[in-house]
């Protein structure tokens, strides 16, 4: 049976470097030299970090982060 998981993504055009997501979870997000955020790797969220991913979405002032369910 296909298992569902979540993928987190930061829209680089919307991110303004507030770094709220990075402070919520440095495991899920990383910053470049300018402080712009992106998802770590492919953005697949380990089960234990789903609540942090949701928290990051709910605290991005620019609405730059999306969390989508994917089949794996």
């Amino acid at each position, binding site marked *: 049976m296909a298992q569902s998981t979540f993928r987190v993504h930061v829209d680089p055009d919307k991110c*303004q*470097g*507030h*770094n*709220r997501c*990075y*402070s*919520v979870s440095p495991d899920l997000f990383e*910053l470049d*030299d*300018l*402080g712009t955020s992106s998802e770590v790797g492919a953005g697949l969220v380990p089960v234990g970090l789903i609540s942090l991913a949701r*928290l990051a979405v*709910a*605290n*991005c*002032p*620019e*609405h730059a982060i999306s969390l989508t369910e994917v089949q794996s």
Partner: protein
Amino acid sequence: MSNRHPPVQDFATDFDHTDAAWVADPYLIWDDLRQRCPVAHSDRYGGAWLPVTHDLVSEVAYDTDHFTSRSVVVSERRPGPEDLPAPIGVSPPISSDPPFHGVVRRMLLPAFTPKPIAALEPFARDLCRELLAATDGRSSFDAALEYAQHIPVRVIVKFLGFPQEDADQFRGIIRLVLEEVDLPPEEREERFAAVDAYMDAQIEDHLARPRDDLTSFLLEAEIGGQKLPVEHVRGTMALLMVAGIDTTWSAIGASLWHLAQHPEDRRRLAAEPDLMGTALEELLRAYAPVTMARLVATDFDFHGHPFKEGDWLLLPFPAANRDPAAFENPGQVQLDRATNRHAAFGLGRHRCLGSNLARMELRVALEEWLARYPDFELSDPAAVTWSAGQVRGPRRLPVTILGRGG
């Protein structure tokens, strides 16, 4: 507080952010305007607008076509032909418009990411401990004057590489720039000239003896293979001083003011250190110190209002943070608020460059305070005074210590 302007009768048609009623409690005024307008107007300052909902504040922040950042402090004086015009402005990049804004901002951003800011944390922590140690043995003192105000000024002086002993001198200069916006233009000119003269002396000193600090970083920086013009460096240094001091002083002071009156929040924060992450953001939301400003760039209709080129627009991020359409129970401080897209550091491309620095200072200031003074209250609520103008924070904050930490 200022008595230079007549008292406001109706904030919908005659608002003034230096009015005694605004200084005492702007939240009531914004709540009222949100129901009635939600874009207020004033003929003061030569004509100004004030949107108070989260939606409208966001819309203006994202619209760099109809609004220019050429001046971001509303005063009697608009930028004139003698000032550096857009897109550069007098204090780049806050006073710059795209595309120049992005170029300058990208040059500065690496100095303000979490990593370099973390390097300043031990200095900030030692400083907080030193300030608290100086209050030792006293049952009451002024938390704004003896604690909060010293932290950002000394950290930014360290960051820029200016002598620590000059810190006191700056606080005076900066208050005049930010708070005395209703002074006659010629008197304001004199204040600005004093800031420029100090910065010029520092530039000369750093050119002669470069070192590892932000001033030398700016003097070494290049855009398109060219070093920055001296007025650009001076403007940015002045910006970092002005933007980095009153703002964070206000955030620390307002947070202590809240904690002094809410024993349950105080105890919770002292008992649950993990709460600091959300608590910090909630205090920033509820007591966001900074209202920005724009100038209208071109005549256009803004939701039925005839905006004219050169009109001021106050951009109250603190009002956006109290909009019930954007935040549940916005008037209530909930230290564990989980959904909190507050706009304390602005929105869009002008997001506060120093937000990581401000957060570090606020967190360290509260951690060190609570470690030493977990229990305290306002000595006299009526003795607390608040700043006027676009940066809101307590300027007198007498507290009484009820219990001591280890």
